[in-house]
């Protein structure tokens, strides 16, 4: 066990990947000498060379398109998209090529490509630097989509994603990049697509991922003071979703609240609510409620505190759930 930030945990995870897997590559804008704008790849170019840690031209479609080609040649590229809002120029290569080519080939081609995307708001940034595009990818058959919420998961999930033979879109909550926590550098107890119950409780289930896990945990701590015992589940994997622990929890608590930063309409929360309702219809005391970003473009940073789900909005939703 050592204490480190998520950035350091990702960095050490990537270092391990590069050490163990000779075909692994890192590629993206400014990932080399600069170590990435968030320093996630700090020092890797120096140690593994610019042939394995590749500063690319400034073109996201090119990054993903050539990563596919490299994967076809037997490489295992780990791409960095500099910020969430810059993944869209690569959308065709992601959803029409990376997602579909293995299936197109009848399983003869596998594309072990990881696409790292720092995502979410709360860092006071300008437009396009605080987006939560995960639902686009979760809705895309052929991709796997995960989001880490803490340094330990970051450390292990990036290694598991790199080891996967499927394309993985890997979301990193940038407002949690610097928060430090314990990392078990020996082993991981969870698989890449496992959900995790990060706090047990019996009154209601709060479901979150990425940056909102911390929000949910704070809400649960506050609720505990008011005598309400909230269970918090970190989804970790958005596609596929690990339904079993979610359903089991909701069957016990009868109430659920889903929390994410992306706009609510057609977001991840909709799928979670729809499916949990299908599976746990008779157990639910209230509809699954959602606490999400509003259905607006991410606002100017001086308004982001109003846009983002926070402790109070989560507790409000829990209260509303208990009103049923």
């Amino acid at each position, binding site marked *: 066990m050592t204490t480190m930030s998520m950035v350091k945990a990702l960095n050490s995870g990537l270092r391990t990947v590069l050490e163990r897997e000779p075909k692994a590559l890192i590629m993206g804008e400014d990932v080399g000498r600069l170590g990435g704008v968030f320093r996630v790849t700090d020092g890797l170019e120096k140690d593994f060379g610019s*042939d394995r840690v590749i500063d*690319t*031209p400034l*073109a996201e*479609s*090119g990054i*993903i*398109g*050539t*990563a*596919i*080609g*490299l*994967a*076809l*040649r*037997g*490489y295992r590229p780990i791409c960095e998209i500099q910020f969430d809002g810059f993944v869209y*120029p690569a959308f*065709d*290569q992601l959803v*029409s*090529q990376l997602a579909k*080519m*293995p*299936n*197109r*080939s*009848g*399983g*003869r*081609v*596998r594309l072990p490509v990881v696409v790292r995307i720092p995502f979410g708001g709360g860092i006071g940034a300008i437009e396009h630097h605080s987006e939560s595009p995960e639902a686009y990818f979760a809705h895309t*058959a*052929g991709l*796997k989509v995960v989001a880490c919420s803490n340094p330990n998961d970051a450390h292990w999930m990036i290694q598991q994603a790199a080891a*996967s*033979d*499927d394309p993985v879109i890997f979301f990193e909550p940038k407002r949690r990049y610097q928060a430090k926590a314990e990392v078990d550098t020996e082993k991981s107890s969870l698989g890449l*697509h496992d959900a995790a119950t990060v706090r047990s409780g019996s009154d209601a289930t709060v479901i979150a991922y990425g940056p909102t896990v911390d929000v949910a945990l704070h809400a649960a701590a506050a609720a505990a003071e008011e005598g309400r015992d909230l269970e918090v589940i970190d989804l970790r994997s958005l596609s*596929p*979703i690990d*339904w079993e622990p979610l359903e089991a929890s909701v069957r016990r608590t009868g109430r659920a609240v889903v929390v994410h930063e992306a706009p609510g309409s057609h977001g991840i929360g909709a799928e979670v609510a729809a499916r949990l309702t299908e599976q746990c219809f008779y157990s639910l005391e209230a509809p699954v409620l959602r606490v999400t970003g509003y259905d607006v473009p991410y606002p100017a940073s001086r308004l982001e505190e109003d846009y983002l789900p926070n402790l109070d909005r989560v507790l409000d939703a829990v209260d509303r759930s208990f009103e049923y």
Partner: protein
Amino acid sequence: MGDQPRPAKKTAKNRRKSASANEPEFVQLLNPGGQRVDHPDYALDLSDEEYRGLYRDLVITRELDAQGTALQRQGQLGLWPSLLGQEAAQVGSGRALREQDTVFPAYRELGVQWCRGIDLLSSFALFRGVDLGGRDVAADRFHMYSIVIASQTLHAAGYAMGVAKDGAVGSDEGEAVVVYHGDGATSEGDFNEALIWAGVFNAPLVLFCQNNQYAISETNARQFLVPPSQRAAGFGVPGILVDGNDVLATYAVTKSALDRARHGEGPSLIEAYTYRMQPHTTSDDATRYRDEAELDQWRAKDPILRYRTWLEAEGLAGGDYFAEIDAEADREVRKLRDRVISLTDPEVSEMFDSVYAEPVPQLAAQRAEAVAFRASLDEGSES
């Protein structure tokens, strides 16, 4: 007649002579009349067998392609994108490839596929709708057809970067990569990004543009002011314009570009100036946007006719040989046709089985549902 290079007979006089008003300045070794013309940069050194082989490839390609059109008309295929008129571009470039080279096609490259010696059934299966075009691309060194225009240019660039990373360039045995695309494809961002990537990373890539004058109904005028072969230089990539209806020229030019690539000298772009004699696909109605007069002009430049004329004039082949090839083409066509017609529909489960390498529980459940549903329908119709 030995295996020495066959120079053009009247070098100075023939050179460029063929270029009519509507033809650009391109590399040409055989003019539409079937006369050899010389080009200072491109010599040719093929054996008689190889010269005859090119004819065989041209004819068989044309016949197999015609069968695609026929099968579509007969309801055996959902769609067919004919390559009629582009045989020389495909056979010339396809035969210039060496064993170790890798091809990224668009969706019209039946002729290249033929030259690679790969089972063509996969392309017919794709257009029949029984699968999505899957093949063992690694063994074939011929990737899947790519429908999203220009997307494959980036795959090829990345693959070629990988070849360079592997150190598989730098000698005669080096590997080269060729990607096929159309004139319309040059307008997509992806194509231009591929030029950048290939250039910056000095990838062993040949971009082979079949400028068949049309992107569905749109002419070159809607895609560029300056042809792709001239655009390349602005990316630091040499560009060559070649008579795409001249199998000798496309062969020579591609061979030289591939050799450049395999020796680690970087990417290049070839624009093969040719013509799509059929509509865009069997779904298209080309009479809406072009006229017979234009077709006639191009009929006069037919790639097979001119080559046959030259072979005959050189005494490399005659009536017997041509008849033999026709018969062989016929056999190939019939063999393929039978196999296409007997391609059976896929199992429902196949829709689910290749999506992921590592299984997803939810998909297993959906698979079961779909399989059961089909079984219930089949039962229903049996009873």
